[in-house]
């Protein structure tokens, strides 16, 4: 178990965005978080990554309590996320965007004065490693382009490459194939599966059911901030509660 969320609650001015939410993520699996619009999926991501604070509940990540930690501290524990809308640094090159996630140890101002050799050496190593990730997602030739000059699909790939470059054991992806054409969608799926095979854990929010059913080891269904079902994709597909939540059937 990598991540465990217990009794999580978040209230936005009287609306319970997340309500008594409980789930666990297993190591080296792809878990998807699905649910109708407004079910609280992105809020759960924001709570886990510390962008907002929960009203109640606990989040455990590999033996650490995450609640109350600042976002950058959580990121340093080995938990990386991508955003629903592309969140690259537009006026930095693709390579600079990549390097940013790997160089937390090289960015101290005092090292610039006292340790310039180490910076130069490790910066070169990081560049090589980042190039490997750009090759993995298939855009190595774009390394010198400003991120804003890449196409939408390339930006999506760059964002995934960047998340991978963190070497974080747990990666949270918010709609990695949102607004992407079917060909690129399948490409992204293959990349993510390759990543899993390299021993990482993924938690993905996605609306594309075709993608979800093909990629998931486990699906968690969220509705009105609560987990209403979880299990392997096959089981979820036939779950009555899930169908009701999506199709707007009767609720008790």
């Amino acid at each position, binding site marked *: 178990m990598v991540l465990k969320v217990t009794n999580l609650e978040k209230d936005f001015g009287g609306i319970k965005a997340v309500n008594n939410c409980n789930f666990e993520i297993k190591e080296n699996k792809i878990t998807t978080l699905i649910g109708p619009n407004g079910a609280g999926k992105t809020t759960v991501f924001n709570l886990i990554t510390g962008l907002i604070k929960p009203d109640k509940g606990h989040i455990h990540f590999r033996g650490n309590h995450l609640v109350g930690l600042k976002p950058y501290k959580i990121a340093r524990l080995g938990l990386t996320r991508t955003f629903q809308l592309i969140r690259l640094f537009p006026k*930095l090159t693709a390579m600079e965007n990549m390097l*940013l996630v790997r160089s937390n140890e090289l960015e101290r101002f005092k090292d610039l004065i006292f340790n310039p050799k180490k910076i130069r050496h490790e910066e070169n190593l990081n560049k090589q490693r980042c190039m490997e990730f750009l090759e993995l997602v298939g855009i190595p030739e774009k390394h010198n382009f400003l991120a804003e000059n890449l196409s939408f699909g390339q930006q999506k790939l760059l964002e995934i490459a960047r998340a991978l470059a963190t070497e974080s054991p747990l990666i949270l992806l918010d709609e990695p194939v949102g607004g992407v054409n079917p060909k690129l969608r399948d490409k992204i799926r293959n990349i993510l599966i390759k990543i899993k095979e390299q021993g990482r854990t993924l938690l993905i929010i996605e609306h594309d059911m075709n993608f979800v059913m093909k990629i998931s080891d486990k699906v968690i269904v969220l509705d009105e901030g609560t987990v209403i079902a979880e299990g392997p994709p096959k089981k979820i597909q036939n779950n009555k509660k899930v169908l009701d939540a999506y199709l707007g059937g009767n609720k008790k």
Partner: protein
Amino acid sequence: MIEAYFIHLLILIGIYIILAASLNLAMGNTGLLNVGHVAFYAIGAYTSALLALNLNIPFWIGFLAGGILAALFALLIAIPTLKLRGDYLAIATLGLAVVVESILRNWTSLTRGPLGLPGIPKPALFGMTFNNNSYLILVIIFSVITCLIIYYITKSPFGRVLKAIREDELAAASLGKNTTKYKTQALVISAFFAGIAGSLYAHYINFIDPTTFSVLESILIISMIIVGGLASVKGAVIGAVILTLLPEPLRFLPIPSFAIGALRQILYALLLVIILIKRPQGIWGEFTKQKENGA
């Protein structure tokens, strides 16, 4: 005579290069809309001048003390203001500039207020005093060193984080960057160089008073980096050269002296508008190269 005039201009250019390049680090690279850069300039100038006049402390120590005190002051104001973003930070730093100027004007027991501080000694080394020609060399050395250091900073991993913060602070934080710390460091480094520029100015002109350090001076430095190009050391240098020289020809035209000040402002405004329309990235801005590559 004409030679002395050119040397004077070159010394001013050198000092403005330090001011523009250091402001560019905070504003162009980190995205901190700092309208109060002149406050750090003033602190450096007054610290160094007062140490020399009251305590007979040599220029070399006062020079460093000016930079360090400006940096400490930046650290102090970073705590409450760096939580602000964009326009709000601009207003807060504008306030800072006004407050510092007002203190210089009213703390008469220390600064002699509007009377200013006359007779600031020229620096000396091994018994040799730096007069105009040798002072120019001194200023050139310091401005080149400043540019090299700032260039080195902006090209380093540290500088990359500053740019990332400028682009999207929240995203930078979610990548594990302690953005407040980086913004503070950028402001402190920037202030340090503004402080040493102030010291260089004070010991060159030999007389300082609060009017030199009005908010308008900040606007001038900001104009330099906008004209020259944001987030680029070359841009800061070009901007400092152009804006220092631009109003000079007016001196040789048959214009009544009362009109010169106003004409100077009109020229600045005209140049700024032309640049913003024709070349918004500045003459040699950060992206000049990429644009030309057609990427």
